[in-house]
């Protein structure tokens, strides 16, 4: 029984983490039709920046905020100067996003070195939580909480604000949105920055669990892709639900079917794409 409870909690915590990663990617792809293959390295960059901030001010939340802002700024510049001229050139976008991710990854290696660096969770959350016979790290539950909070905040943004309405319009029907006078290029910049900020802050928040290490970007990017594909492109609900499904498959699968550890995530994804290409909640064909 204990096994099932802990694994369920593990799945929820991992799902929260994945949502922080995937939400930004889903937004960017949904609106701009750009598969931002830099997303993993933005996540990693955020984590490393968090490491440095923590050395100066040991407050994880502040590090997350600053990390998110810094990565957002970087993302904004990248989008404006390099990605914008490539509208419509899908292959060029692939090349440049991967190229930039190489540069970012190597820079991180130079600046922060090759050893993994853990980020310290806030001291109040360092004790494990004891619920009856279950011991569970308190911090992971907080990550889940942050993910839920972020999901609600993003939902409110999309649903209740004018900005959100414009974004939704752009996702649903770009030419029409343009025709109606929505300032599409400003929207692009905003959404890309928002997506980058989520990735960067997510990297810091995930830091106490995953540490910052070379290769974090390559480990996280496929996960973001899987979640978004499963959940459906452009759908925040899809990213949310998809994150928890993927997290559960991974957590329980690794435990119950260790021989399939490497492929446990890909098999269901193949099935989903093959038979329901738009994902669970996607509204458009990819």
């Amino acid at each position, binding site marked *: 029984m204990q096994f099932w409870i802990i694994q369920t909690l593990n799945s929820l915590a991992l799902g929260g983490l994945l949502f922080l990663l995937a939400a930004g990617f889903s937004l960017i*792809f949904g609106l701009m039709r750009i*598969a931002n293959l830099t997303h993993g390295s933005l996540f990693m960059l955020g984590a490393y920046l968090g490491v440095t901030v923590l050395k100066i001010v040991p407050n994880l939340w502040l590090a997350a905020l600053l990390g998110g802002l810094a990565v957002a700024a970087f993302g904004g510049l990248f989008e404006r100067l*390099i990605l914008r*001229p*490539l509208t419509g*050139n*899908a*292959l*060029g976008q*692939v*090349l*440049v996003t*991967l*190229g*930039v*991710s*190489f*540069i970012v*990854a*190597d*820079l991180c290696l*130079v600046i922060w070195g090759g050893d993994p660096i853990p980020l310290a969770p806030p001291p109040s959350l360092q004790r494990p939580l004891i619920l009856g016979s279950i011991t569970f790290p308190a911090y992971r539950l907080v990550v889940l909480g942050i993910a839920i909070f972020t999901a609600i905040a993003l939902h409110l943004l999309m649903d209740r604000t004018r900005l959100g309405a414009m974004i939704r319009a752009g996702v649903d029907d770009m030419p029409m949105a343009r025709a109606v006078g929505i300032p599409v290029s400003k929207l692009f910049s905003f959404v890309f920055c928002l997506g980058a900020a989520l990735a960067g802050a997510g990297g810091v928040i995930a830091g106490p669990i995953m540490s910052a290490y070379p290769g974090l970007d*390559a480990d996280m990017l*496929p996960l973001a*892709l*899987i979640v978004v*594909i499963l959940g459906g*492109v452009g759908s925040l609900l899809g990213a949310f639900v998809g994150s928890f499904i993927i997290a559960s498959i991974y957590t329980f699968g690794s435990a119950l079917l260790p*021989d*399939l*550890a*490497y*492929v446990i995530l*890909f*098999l269901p*994804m*193949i099935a989903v*794409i*093959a*038979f329901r*290409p738009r994902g669970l909640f996607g509204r458009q*064909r*990819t």
Partner: protein
Amino acid sequence: MKRFAWTLFVLMLVAFPLFAGDFYVNLASQIFIAAVFAASLNLLVGYGGLVSLGHAAWVGLAAYTSAWLYLRMGLGHAAAAPLALLLTTVIAGIFGWIALHASGLGFLMITLALSQVLWGTAYRWSSVTNGDNGLSGLTRPAPFGLSLDKPAAFYYFALLVVIVALWLIAKFVASPFGAALRGTRDEPRRMAALGHDVWRVRWITFVYSGFWGAVAGLLFVYYHKYIHPTTLSLTVSAEALLSVIAGGAGTLAGPVVGAAIVLTLKNYVSAYLERWNMLLGLVFVLIVIFMPDGVVPGVRRWWARLGRK
């Protein structure tokens, strides 16, 4: 003039091992292998408009099959090679059927997922693949009794394969089928309206591209005489994709140029520059900024502009 330049180029390629050291001859062989691999991917990406991140699957399948048939079944290369090609092509047919249920990002993801499944299987199925230790103790074939162990011998073998491969691929692209393929890339709906079976065109291309990927895989395992699951990794697929795009997708010379750039940076410049990875990324970014269609179309444009002056 053009013919003269081409003849000179071919002569240089043929004469290369006579004046270059072993290391450079080997580097050239590796570029040839990467060129075949990139050219096979280009069929899908450049001419078919289908971006795949799972092309490493063909290299891995062909290489492992050839190695396994040689080591465990005692088959000679004359038998093992066609069997490896056949098996890989059949699996390409199956994977193609699965993958073509989607397009765009979905297609990208399925191809990635399928090759990752193979990657994981290579690690775990140790009884067949020897897992993380890889399969070693392999040999190079000896066509007509000629040993390929010396760098120059293998170089000529690889050069021959590259020429044949590019020639056949060029024929494929120039054929009516190739025209239909490019049509499905540019205007799929119109093509369907005209009566073409878009799905079948794409599937056939997928399989053909898998075949040439398998050829690259055989060259790879012959050259290295060793196969390890890392050959099936995402990095290998990504590198091939980057070579194609950087060189110029949808051109014949593009993948070759792209492969040469990537391999030179990886295996040659890396000896001089610790930060070669960063340089590679920078090269890609610069290519995209100044030659968004790739090096080959970009250079052609500059050449034309110079010619006009």
